[in-house]
């Protein structure tokens, strides 16, 4: 099983290094209104991931060539702060960030009622200030909360969770070590009210049974995380 077969990530009781059961997610806190100058914002701490998302708009789309006459466009900028990882990230152009920005935009455009705002732009800025594993999931989930906080109409929130495989065991919501030594990673974006999907990526190696298990973990975890998002948006006491 590759070069890392001797790294034990699951103990004899089936518990993971951080004490979680295979289907458990890391602790999560969600806060809105954290960027006072933005139209909507969200801070999401997920394990030791921390994402801050600000939404501006809808506003007039500039430059003109990006305008769509029949709908709004969403402009997503995902970025990892230089100090968000163990080894500093050099600021500047980065293919990984570009790709994540694009798939996040594609996911968000699937739920936002874009046709209500022709010729407009909605700017979503995702900053990862502390990264552990699964930052794209945290970024996308936090972005949907920030859009809701900005009063932008959408058909549903998006909850994004990744499951994967370590030591041949399928586990939900990989942490840093599990991500580094893991054998697969399956991030998904789930619409909690309908169970439909708007975001899907995968890399690694999963058998059909493992794939099914990872999928189910993601959907179940999404429902759990959704409760927290709703609580944050309703002000905690609803």
């Amino acid at each position, binding site marked *: 099983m590759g070069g890392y077969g001797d790294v034990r990530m699951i103990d004899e009781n089936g518990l993971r290094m951080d004490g979680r059961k295979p289907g458990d997610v890391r602790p999560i806190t969600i806060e809105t209104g*954290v*960027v*006072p*100058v*933005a139209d909507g914002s969200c801070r999401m701490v997920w394990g*030791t991931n*921390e994402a*801050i*998302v*600000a939404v*501006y708009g809808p*506003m007039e789309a*500039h430059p003109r060539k990006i305008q769509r006459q029949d709908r709004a466009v969403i*402009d997503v*900028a995902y*970025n990892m*702060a*230089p*100090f*968000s*990882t*163990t*080894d*500093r990230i050099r*600021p*500047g152009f980065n293919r990984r960030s570009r790709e994540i920005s694009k798939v996040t935009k594609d996911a968000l455009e699937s739920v936002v009622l874009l046709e209500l705002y022709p010729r407009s732009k909605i*700017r979503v*800025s*995702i*900053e990862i*200030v*502390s*990264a552990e594993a699964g930052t794209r999931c945290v970024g996308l989930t936090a972005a949907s909360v920030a859009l809701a906080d900005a009063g932008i109409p959408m058909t549903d929130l998006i909850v994004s969770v990744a499951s994967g495989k370590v030591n041949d065991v399928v586990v939900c919501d990989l942490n840093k070590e599990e991500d580094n030594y893991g054998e697969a990673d399956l991030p998904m974006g789930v619409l909690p009210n309908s169970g439909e999907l708007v975001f899907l990526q995968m890399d690694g190696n999963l058998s059909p049974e493992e794939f099914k298990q990872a999928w189910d973990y993601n959907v179940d975890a999404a429902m759990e995380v959704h409760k927290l998002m709703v609580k944050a948006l309703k002000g905690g006491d609803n």
Partner: protein
Amino acid sequence: MSAPTVPNLLRAHLSDLALNDARLDGRSKFEGRELKLETGILPRAEGSAKVTMGDTIVLAGVKFQLMTPYSDRPNQGGLMCSCEVRPLAGRHWEAGPPSPESIELGRVVDRGIRESGCIDVDDLCIIPGEKAWQVILDLHAISDDGNLFDAFALAGIAALRSAIIPAERFEVGEDMPLKVSKKPIMCSYHKVGGRFVYDASYKEELGGDERIHITLGDDDHVHSLQKGLKGIFTADEFAEIMEHAKVRCAELRKIVD
């Protein structure tokens, strides 16, 4: 950075306020906004700080890298201060390569810290000519409601003072705190409605003219100055803000551990 249209009424109103020695938000001309400083808030950074001044919020993070000393200074490590204001921080900040405004922010903060000599670059050398520490201070704006300069400078020095050199991770000895011997503090003044005010808000920046940044060291020595934006000022005006800067820097120095 996109330049929004400045409403003529805003400029006129700011002049009116100045004549009556008042400000948009009711502060007096040299009064700062409510300020909060937190350190050690970023788990992946070796030193970090968050500064909140009214609705302006910034983060600073310190990272360390091993470098080969420059051949003309074989006994010295390096210090770098970098700033990129991302579109997160405000409607007028845009994605793309760092704007001149971003770069100016980083460089002015960098000069204040570097020239104060608070970090002894000789101390950062591990093996002369071969191995030394490079200290990198990254400034990151969360919310820009004006006066990012002071917020960055304060977060920057506080983050450096909380930093631990991760020597064990790089296998070059034991972890130890970064030695930061001084506390350079920046105070910024914006010409608004014809007179200088301290700690301008975004609206005051928008309807104002030039700005002056002063960084003072522990003994009131001047370490960096910068005049930015279009505008003309007199020696008397400068003398007045310099006097205030001395008082304010001393106050701020107390809240930096």
